[in-house]
């Protein structure tokens, strides 16, 4: 396997390099804080955050300029597990997680925790069932694995179709998020902002391919973790004298429960599986675990995530890298409920039940911005009831600095964090799609003799094309960010989990079985999703379409199992191949399609 020509001094000094970077970033924030005090306008501060951070990512991209193929696709396989984990955390924490999740938790209370569980637990599946074995397989993409294990282009194409549908849906959601942040902080219309953000994405991912992405993503993780934690740590300290919000928000929960009594609010924040009236509901119960299952399995099926573990030096590091990934992701996800709790506390304490003329400043400010926060005195009594206060979930995180009484520079910081989150995810996705098109379709199926140069050019051209289409679709606002992301997970789960897991863990899986399973699983899931979204098909068992994988996934397993048993068992060579995948040491047993690049 080609080793990259990444200088060893770079790898050995990663800790120092990124520590210096983090310090530099904090210094930059302090400088802007001083400027704000001196009277520099919010708009300029906003621009500084957006353009300077994009500039840094672009700079890293330029530093990583490369033509060497293995570096383009899998970062030369030199990313140490600790840093790969951070990069995965950034890739994982998308605009959806960063901006919307805390808001989703604010609105849904316990019900929203399905997202928290679903978007973390899948990593156990990745680490145990898939990452080490895909790393041993060692080629560049998930469709590569499908094409080799299931003997041919049919399986490869199925894999590519699922990958593109899932990744594209996901990336539209990211463009949406980028559009919101960019338009808010640059003060430009949403449709324009999407394309501005797009340029930022392309700049980062075009230049170095996969090689730049992990390093850029580490940089983005550092920014986004600082940005996410600062307001909520501050607020925790202010409210309870405890700078660890994840421990202190328990007190907020108690107070919220008391306020809910006082204000006559029927749906308790911590109430499990309750409907709007606060009563236990089986529909809520079922949707919860269906969502958790879908998101977890989707995690272990998303090609752009599985690809991360191709970039580690070896199998042992792939396993450790999953551990670090979940750790860095955990830092963010266990903080989100604290955000939600503090926001709710603030709203119940200082907003609901108050005179409308005397609402806090942050409410006044945000109600000026179009449509995200609405106050309507429906019963004309001059006092704000719960039903008269409508807050869009996407602004909970963005407004937290103001709620905490922090200066505008922290709001700019949070915006930079959200942007880092969106860009890092978009990069990972775009690369997965472009790789699938250029490597899996063009190189493996259309022109196997294509030169390295040509393959890279095709990849880059496709990257731009896909990005533009995604941005255009995002402009049409198909659905909420979190909803679109959940769709992407559903599609990936229903289409890919069965063939991947069974391919490694059950030698008897045949090509016909896997292909049939992929088609049925993905087909049913897509049918449910499109039918309920665009054709008003009624829900099956009350399961919302964010969990459509619930119907596709079991069928995928069942069909794969049944058809495999009905067809001839795989050849001796294929079984030896699977054996060799299961063992870290040594070469892969040869079957058709195995190459050593």
């Amino acid at each position, binding site marked *: 396997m080609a080793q990259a020509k990444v200088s060893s001094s770079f790898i050995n000094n990663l800790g120092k390099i990124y520590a210096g970077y983090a310090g530099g970033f904090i210094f930059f924030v302090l400088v802007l804080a001083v400027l704000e005090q001196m009277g520099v306008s919010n708009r300029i501060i906003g621009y500084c955050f957006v353009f300077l951070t994009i500039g840094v990512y672009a700079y890293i991209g330029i530093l990583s300029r490369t033509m060497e193929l293995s570096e383009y696709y899998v970062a030369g396989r030199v990313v140490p597990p600790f840093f790969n984990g951070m990069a995965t955390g950034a890739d994982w924490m998308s605009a959806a997680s960063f901006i919307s999740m805390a808001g989703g938790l604010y609105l849904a209370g316990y019900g929203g925790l399905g997202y928290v569980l679903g978007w973390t637990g899948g990593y*156990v599946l990745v*680490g145990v069932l898939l990452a080490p074995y895909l790393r041993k397989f060692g080629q560049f993409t998930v469709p590569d694995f499908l094409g080799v294990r299931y003997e041919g282009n049919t399986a490869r194409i199925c894999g590519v179709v699922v990958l593109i549908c899932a990744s594209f849906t996901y990336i539209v959601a990211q463009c949406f998020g980028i559009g919101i942040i960019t338009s808010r902080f640059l003060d430009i219309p949403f449709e324009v902002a999407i394309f501005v953000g797009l340029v930022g994405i392309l700049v980062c991912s075009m230049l170095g391919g996969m090689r730049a992405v992990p390093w850029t993503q580490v940089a983005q993780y550092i920014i986004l973790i600082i940005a996410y934690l600062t307001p909520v740590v501050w607020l925790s300290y202010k409210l309870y004298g405890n700078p660890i919000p994840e421990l202190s928000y328990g007190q907020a929960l108690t107070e919220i429960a008391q306020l809910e009594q006082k204000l006559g609010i029927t749906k308790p924040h911590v109430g499990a599986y309750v409907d709007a009236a606060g009563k236990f509901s089986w529909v809520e119960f079922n949707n919860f*675990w269906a969502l958790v299952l879908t998101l977890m399995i989707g995690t272990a099926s998303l090609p752009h995530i599985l690809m991360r573990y191709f970039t580690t030096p070896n199998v042992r590091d792939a396993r450790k890298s999953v551990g670090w990934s979940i750790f860095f992701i955990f830092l963010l996800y266990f903080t989100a409920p604290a955000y939600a709790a503090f926001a709710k506390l603030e709203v119940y304490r200082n907003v609901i039940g108050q005179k409308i003329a005397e609402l806090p400043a942050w409410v006044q400010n945000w109600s000026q911005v179009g449509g995200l926060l609405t106050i309507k005195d429906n019963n004309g009594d001059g006092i704000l009831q719960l039903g008269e206060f409508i807050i869009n979930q996407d602004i909970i995180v963005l407004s937290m600095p103001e709620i905490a009484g922090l200066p505008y520079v922290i709001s700019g910081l949070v915006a930079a964090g959200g942007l880092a989150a969106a860009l890092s995810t978009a990069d990972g996705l775009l690369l997965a799609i472009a790789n699938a098109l250029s490597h899996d379709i063009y190189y493996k199926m259309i022109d196997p003799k294509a030169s390295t140069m040509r393959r890279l050019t095709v990849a880059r051209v496709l990257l731009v094309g896909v990005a533009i289409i995604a941005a255009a679709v995002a402009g049409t606002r198909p659905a909420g960010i979190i909803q679109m992301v959940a769709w992407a997970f559903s599609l990936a789960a229903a289409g890919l989990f069965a063939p991947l897991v069974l391919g490694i863990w059950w030698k008897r899986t045949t090509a016909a079985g896997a292909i049939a399973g992929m088609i049925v699983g993905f087909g049913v899931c897509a049918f449910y999703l499109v039918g309920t979204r665009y054709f008003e098909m009624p829900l099956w068992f009350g399961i919302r379409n964010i969990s459509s994988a619930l119907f596709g996934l079991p069928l995928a397993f069942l069909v794969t199992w049944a058809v495999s048993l009905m067809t001839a068992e795989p050849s001796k060579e294929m079984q030896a191949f699977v054996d060799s995948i299961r063992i870290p040491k040594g070469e892969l047993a040869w079957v058709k399609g195995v190459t050593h690049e």
Partner: protein
Amino acid sequence: MAELTPAQRDAYWKKTSRLMWIIMTLWVIFSFVIPAFAVQLNEIVIGGFPLGFYMAAQGSLISYVVLCFWNAYAQNKTDEEFGVAEE
């Protein structure tokens, strides 16, 4: 190819599979079994946190981090024990 006899290979895979099943079982417990009892667990309140809420918000998450690192550690050890770890 690693110089393993089929018997050794089987033993290795058996041990690997065993670890896999243990971890997957724990995963099911933390992801589905415990949340299924959230209503009952919420009766218990610790530090302001109703326990059902706490498990879904933090407790299970901590378990995932532990499971991933434990898997890496235990499986890497198994690899060394059977001589199949990479150099």
